[in-house]
């Protein structure tokens, strides 16, 4: 990442150079995200495709421009901006206005990363910083969901690949027409643009677990298909490019905490399976919380971090005012990382604990 220009480079041992560099890891994360992205485009059509292209493009461009402004070599080639752009697109609703997506991308890279000194220095996941900004800035647009396979609601229809959802193309700085009013003429039975999570929160209606697992529901562009997210995550774990403890701790603690709620009152609380496969929990656990920069470095710390994120997500979902809590839980986890790292430093071999006397 940092390029030294010293005449003589003096380093302490070990002098082993691994084959795995930042670039290869990042490139593999991009590979792991591709199936999810492709499926999202398949389900939500042209609008989702444009969203992915726009956020990724803006993120890369912003990174390049900011590097030039800071008179540093451009870091575009390490693929981290591509990942930020992809992740941001996957967390936004499929019909999100493109001009807002551009704002979010600039915030992600500018405020979330470059301001702290670039890759490796950012305390928070850049994509989530951008999304949190958009959530606070445009609360209506970010909770307007296009249903899966809209407009014909059939898997093998092709209209979604040739037409664009109206909000996507709303003029810069202008209000997107709401999806609901746009499709009034078509009348879709019982459609109110609700995600499985908001239906659970406000109406206590569950969605079939199969649909959730495969991804045939409304929701953010890339959060719907748990199956493909797990596939990407397992690929990274198998190549040892992701700390498997983080997703395991998050998903495990989310299961346990929601299991307790479900056991207490199965009428108003959803099943642990629903909690696991709905919303952004799976995507967040696999690709955002496990971001190497914002997560702790010690094995014990990683468990604490994961359990914190998993349980906070469930508590926000079930007890808070919002239907979804993954984003805030991960940002909170990122914020706690320095503290967790500090408290869980392993003891140096042979050294005594503080206060321990012979």
């Amino acid at each position, binding site marked *: 990442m940092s390029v030294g220009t010293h005449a003589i480079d003096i380093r302490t041992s070990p002098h082993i150079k691994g084959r795995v560099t930042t670039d290869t890891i990042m490139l593999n994360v991009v590979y792991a995200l591709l199936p999810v992205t492709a499926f999202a485009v398949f389900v939500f059509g042209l609008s989702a495709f444009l969203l992915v292209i726009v956020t990724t493009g803006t993120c890369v461009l912003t990174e390049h421009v900011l590097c030039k402004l800071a008179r540093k070599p451009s870091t575009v080639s390490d693929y981290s901006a591509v990942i930020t752009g992809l992740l941001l697109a996957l967390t936004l609703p499929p019909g999100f*206005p493109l001009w*807002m997506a551009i704002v979010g991308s600039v915030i992600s890279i500018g405020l979330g990363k470059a301001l702290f000194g670039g890759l490796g220095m950012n305390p928070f996941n850049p994509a989530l910083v951008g999304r949190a*900004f958009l959530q*606070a*800035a*445009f*609360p209506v*647009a970010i909770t307007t969901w296009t249903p899966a396979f809209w407009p014909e609601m059939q898997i093998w229809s092709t209209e979604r690949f040739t037409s664009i959802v109206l909000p996507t193309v*709303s*003029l810069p*700085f*202008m*209000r*997107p027409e709401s999806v609901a009013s746009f499709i009034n003429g078509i009348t879709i039975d019982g459609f109110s643009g609700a995600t499985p999570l908001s239906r659970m929160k406000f109406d206590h209606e569950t969605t079939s677990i199969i649909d959730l697992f495969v991804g045939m529901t409304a929701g953010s562009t890339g959060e719907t298909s748990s199956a493909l997210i797990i596939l990407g995550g397992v690929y990274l774990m198998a190549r040892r490019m992701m700390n498997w403890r983080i997703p395991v701790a998050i998903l495990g603690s989310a299961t346990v905490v929601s299991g307790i709620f479900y056991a207490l009152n199965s009428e108003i609380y959803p099943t642990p399976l629903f909690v696991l496969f709905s919303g952004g929990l799976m995507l967040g656990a696999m690709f955002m919380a496990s971001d190497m920069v914002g997560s702790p470095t010690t094995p014990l710390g990683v468990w604490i971090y994961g359990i914190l994120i998993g349980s906070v997500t469930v508590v926000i979902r079930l007890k808070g005012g919002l239907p979804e809590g993954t984003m805030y839980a991960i940002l909170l986890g990122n914020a706690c990382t320095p503290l967790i790292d500090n408290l869980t430093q392993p003891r140096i071999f042979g050294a005594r604990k503080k206060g321990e006397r012979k």
Partner: protein
Amino acid sequence: MSKAGPSQASIFLNGLWKENPVFVQVLGMCPVLAVTNSVRNAIAMGLSTMFVLVMSSTLVSLVRNIVPKQVRIATYILIISTFVTIVDYVIKAVSIPVYKALGPFIALIVVNCIILGRAEAFASKNSVYRSILDAFGMGIGFSFALLCLGAVREILGAGTFLGVPLFGPYFEPWIIFLLPSGGFFTLGAWLLAFSLWKERRTRKATLAAEHAQELAS
């Protein structure tokens, strides 16, 4: 006070620009962040603070030769809180909506460090005339800063300026600028702009000085 003290104009301009309480001294951040979500609130807060600042500076300067050193802070606080209470009554009598919007922050003017700061650092050592001048400079500087924040936040956050719509009915407001987090973003952006501008000026000034030296040698 020696004759060599700063000129009247420079006392006034000091608070307005060179030592702007918000952009340079970064004092009194609580109202700066909390009540600048609209131009109206920003102006009301700026004027209230300026009133308290001018009146208390006057009174502090008047009694500066009588008050013993040991009890001076207690006396200043007494004087400042008196004028804050007066502002509180007056705003309530003039407009309840403004009073509600400013909420507890009127009462909190009393702990605004700018006011006690100027009382201790300036009014207690200078003549009444100079103190009033200084208080006006600081007050206008503070109001100006609040207005800068209020304008950005209202224009982006609501698409209006002083309640007048600017961009037509389809403008999408950036709600975040009405929320506290937007206050931090806006303040950060203004501070950045201010220091960029100052840096550029100092660089120009040093270049000019170097140039002059070269010519002289």
